[in-house]
């Protein structure tokens, strides 16, 4: 049962970790894989620079959930915080895990 899904990757300053996870859960994401990451981007400075690195969140979702999450990111985070996101096509098994 190979099923095409969408993988959304969000990289943000680590301060936002809990907040972003909560938002994504509400938007319908069922699971996350989270890694610590260093980063370099258009904003040099991090308020939490020494609290540790960026947070990189991957979540496999349906395209509609991905869109919902992106809307939220665009409305509430992109402008003020160091957050970026990208989306790619993946194939998964056990698709029931990822359904919303």
């Amino acid at each position, binding site marked *: 049962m190979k099923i095409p899904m969408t993988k959304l990757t969000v990289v943000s300053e680590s*301060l936002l970790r809990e907040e972003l996870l909560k938002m994504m859960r509400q938007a319908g994401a069922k699971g996350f894989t989270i890694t610590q990451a260093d980063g370099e981007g258009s904003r040099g400075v991090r*308020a939490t620079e020494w*609290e*540790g690195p960026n947070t990189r969140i991957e979540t496999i979702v349906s395209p509609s959930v991905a869109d919902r999450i992106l809307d939220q990111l665009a409305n509430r985070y992109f402008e*003020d915080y160091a957050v970026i996101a990208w989306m790619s096509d993946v194939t998964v098994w056990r698709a029931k895990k990822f359904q919303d």
Partner: protein
Amino acid sequence: MELLTQNLISPVVLAFVLGMLARAVRSDLEIPPALYQGLSIYLLFAIGLKGGVALAETPMVELAGPVLITVVLGVITPLSAFGLLRWFGRISRTDAAATAAHYGSVSAVTFLAALEATKIADMAPNGYLPALVAVLEVPGIIVGLMLARQSGSRGVKAALHEVVVGKSIFLLLGGMAIGALCGAEKMESVAPLFVHPFKGVLCLFLLELGMLAAGRLRDLKSAGWRLVVLGCLLPLGHGLLGTAAGTWVGMSSGGAAVFGAMVGSASYIAAPAAVRIALPRASPGIYLTLSLGVTFPFNLAIGVPLFMSFAQYLNAV
């Protein structure tokens, strides 16, 4: 003058300089984040434990004055900082408020460095001071955030939660509670970890802090000379005020000097996290650069010995 040299040529201060040097010569030296977090957990918990033991031995009535004056200064200092940052520093309301929150709050490491300096100079500080660090951490941030006049939905409340149960205050208060409950005798068994190596750990921590501060220095140019001047004047003014107030409420001269350093210091752990949540549009390039890149080294090198001399002078008068 002798105090100044004696203060500068100490393992703690030199470790900070070494950290800055590491960045200047582009060494690949790096303290792994896990280690760094471990050091800061250790320092806060250890200082809490020790403060708790002392606190348990301090009569309640002796505490009232110091606690009250701490709250008062925690409200006054962000206001004076805000005024000067707007008028002389010429930065936006949001940036000024964010920075004011930092100057209203307190830097735990400055506190520790001052503590060590007074001990070396045989000016015994009062044992209850760690409790005042916890007290001083909060009001400045509240006042600062209110100055921004942006009490949006996620504003002050979320930020306050961040501060009050944030790890620094939590460990400090938690350590104090344990120290107070156990008392001096029971704490002896953990002294070989939490008391004896303390100053060495502080050294390592300052090595890292030096590297971070050096990173901030790069942003000094864009901050402009006006802000750099304020980064020295604010700790000076607040520090002398704090020293005087500490003496006035009856602290020992060592205690008043440490208290001055606390009041004069600018937070760079609790405040930045809270401000980032509540005022995302304020520029970390301003508030972090000032507090970590200017005010912290200023206090370490000049502020602390100055407040010590001033406290001795007041005490002699």
